């Protein structure tokens, strides 16, 4: 390839020379599949008959692709696909390690459940207004954020999922939805702008945006001049706002109870966890020294998030607002692991994130069924639902155990690992706060269960009074909802009984976040510098 100029350049170090194997395309498949299906849904916007089926198909393919990717990453270590054959820092790459693949797989599973539930609940009008294209493109954004290896690319995926989530949250245009969307949209926009500010400063400081290259420049050379601490704090601010950490959490309870139940479930399951993942990736892998200095501050943020979240949940009446505050409290628990920062703690964060995605999505969907049964979004306005649906009562009970962190559910293991790692480093007060928030969560969620299921009827009717009937569900909704909530509940139960696979995958993920040498190697195509 030498030109006539006489200057010969050695390209072996900068270009990908090997041809791609078909299996390598797995790295981008989780982004390509939802985009393709989103485009398909958009083209067939006026023929809304088969949209539900198409969405299920698309999400099933996504689940398969992310599962294959997870398998591959667990076997061979981090995988990288570089766009345009230019190795970093020149080209944009998608780098996947166990942490990213694990969360991408879990989110795909939740999305599959969401598609099944949506096939029975999305009305023709909602389909016409683009519910499915938004859903698919949001999944593209979520998968992209988990898999990308480039900071600016991460920003772009954040924007993709954000603008689709705007469309989903406002779908229906009720007054309270418009109000909720206002707060959601403006505050999230400010957060992503902070993210972009930090990215601009990072580019000015290091001259690179590829995560592997940033890691090399920050950690290999020793001293880096420039406002690195400022950048780290800006990133922390931006992602803490995305993840709804105290005191930047107030957009979440203001908006998450307004859209349709499925949308709430998807948001609670996926979006805040993308923020947590970005926090892990940026502060553990890239700015590890700065994270060490900020650890105490992060611990305070985590403790306050846990407590404020769960106290907020105790003060609510509406089921979905209780759940919204419990999402915040769960974010605090994950931040506690980030503040501790040891390998066990990070593994605990990953376990807890997987658990939290499954359980929060399932709880919101269960709240949707409760709302249909009793016709009330209020925990005391319903009541007597045990008689109407013992299966739902049982599933909700298991989910309540799980969200409180009680055995035998997946919530127990996440909290167990986090408390253990907190005690290992001597942060007994953080362990105490985790356990205290667990106790208060138990009170908050079991109060919902008691009022909605245990009581004989709604507030005001004496127990056992005649004449209180719940709404009948149509057969299609019953089937789809039972399938979705049932499978998600079974998953949290199964992960509680047999957590070994999840724990070992999370340990792998934590290792690759904290010691990303193999990640960097794969990003540079094996030509490490």
């Amino acid at each position, binding site marked *: 390839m*030498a*030109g*006539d*100029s006489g*200057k010969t*350049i050695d390209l072996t170090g900068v270009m990908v020379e090997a041809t791609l194997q078909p299996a390598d395309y797995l790295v981008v498949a989780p982004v390509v599949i939802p985009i393709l299906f989103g485009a398909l849904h958009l083209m067939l916007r006026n023929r809304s008959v088969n949209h539900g089926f198409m969405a299920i198909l698309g999400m099933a393919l996504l689940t398969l692709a992310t599962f294959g990717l997870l398998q591959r990453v667990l076997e061979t270590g981090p995988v990288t696909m570089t766009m345009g054959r230019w190795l970093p820092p020149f080209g944009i790459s998608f780098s996947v390690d166990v942490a990213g693949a694990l969360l991408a797989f879990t989110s795909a599973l939740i999305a599959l459940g969401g598609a099944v539930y949506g096939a029975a609940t999305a009305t023709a009008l909602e389909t016409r207004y683009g519910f499915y294209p938004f859903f698919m493109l949001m999944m593209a954004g979520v998968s992209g954020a988990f898999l990308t290896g480039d900071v*600016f690319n991460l920003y*772009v995926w954040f*924007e993709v999922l954000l*603008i689709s989530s*705007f469309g989903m949250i*406002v779908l229906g*245009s009720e*007054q*309270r*939805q*418009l*109000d*909720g*969307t*206002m*707060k959601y*949209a*403006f505050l999230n*926009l*400010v957060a992503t*702008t902070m993210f*972009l*500010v930090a*990215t*601009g*400063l990072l*580019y*000015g*400081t290091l001259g690179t945006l590829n995560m592997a290259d940033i890691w090399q420049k920050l950690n290999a050379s020793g001293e880096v001049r420039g406002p690195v601490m400022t950048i780290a704090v800006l990133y922390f601010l931006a992602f803490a706002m995305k993840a709804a950490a105290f005191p930047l959490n107030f957009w979440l*309870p*203001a*908006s998450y*109870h*307004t859209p349709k139940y499925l949308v709430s479930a998807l948001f609670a399951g996926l979006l805040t966890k993308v923020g947590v993942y970005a926090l892990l990736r940026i502060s553990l892998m890239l700015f590890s020294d700065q994270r060490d200095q900020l650890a105490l501050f992060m611990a305070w943020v985590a403790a306050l998030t846990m407590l404020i979240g769960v106290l907020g949940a*105790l*003060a*609510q*009446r509406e089921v979905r607002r209780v759940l919204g505050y419990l999402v915040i409290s769960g974010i605090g628990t994950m931040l506690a692991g980030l503040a501790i920062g040891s390998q066990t703690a990070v593994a605990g964060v990953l376990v807890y994130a997987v658990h939290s995605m499954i359980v929060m999505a399932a709880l919101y969907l269960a709240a949707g069924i409760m709302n249909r049964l009793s016709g009330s979004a209020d*925990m*005391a306005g319903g009541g007597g639902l045990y008689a109407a649906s013992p299966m739902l009562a049982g599933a909700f009970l298991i989910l309540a155990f799980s969200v409180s962190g009680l055995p035998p559910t997946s919530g127990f293991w996440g909290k167990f690992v986090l408390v253990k790692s907190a005690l290992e480093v001597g942060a007994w007060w953080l362990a105490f706060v985790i356990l205290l928030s667990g106790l208060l969560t138990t009170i908050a969620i079991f*109060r919902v269960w*008691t*009022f909605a299921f245990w*009581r004989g009827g709604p*507030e005001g009717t004496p127990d056992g009074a005649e004449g209180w009937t719940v709404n009948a569900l149509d057969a299609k909704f019953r089937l789809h909802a039972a399938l979705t909530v049932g499978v998600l509940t079974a998953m949290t139960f199964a992960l509680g009984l047999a957590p070994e696979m999840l724990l070992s995958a999370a340990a792998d993920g934590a290792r690759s976040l904290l010691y990303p040498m193999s990640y960097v190697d794969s990003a540079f195509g094996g030509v490490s510098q």
Partner: protein
Amino acid sequence: MEIYLALLVGCFFIVSIYLLLSKYVIRILLGVAILSNAVNLLIFTAGRLNREVPPIIPEALQVPAEATANPLPQALILTAIVISFSFFAFLLVLGFRSFQDLNTDDTDNMRFAEPVDPPPPPEGY
């Protein structure tokens, strides 16, 4: 040159934060527009300013013959402009629609999702 642009970016940030703290949606929207421009200028400045030629490599060569301008910040800003413009368009329509449906653009009166005095949680069983 960088110092002047940095000062300008600072001014943009000050103005946009002042506007974002307002309680009227339309002023917050103006704040958002100025904020995104502040960030675009910030990236541009962070990519080093100089008066060089565009990074076009002559056909016979493999590297540029002389120093060139940095093309990457321009690509980044192009992406950021498109994104922030689409966001601004969405928020503008959202604000207008909210004004129509909620009859207010004062955020203090926007208490539809969170009523001012929500009923207390149930106490007794």
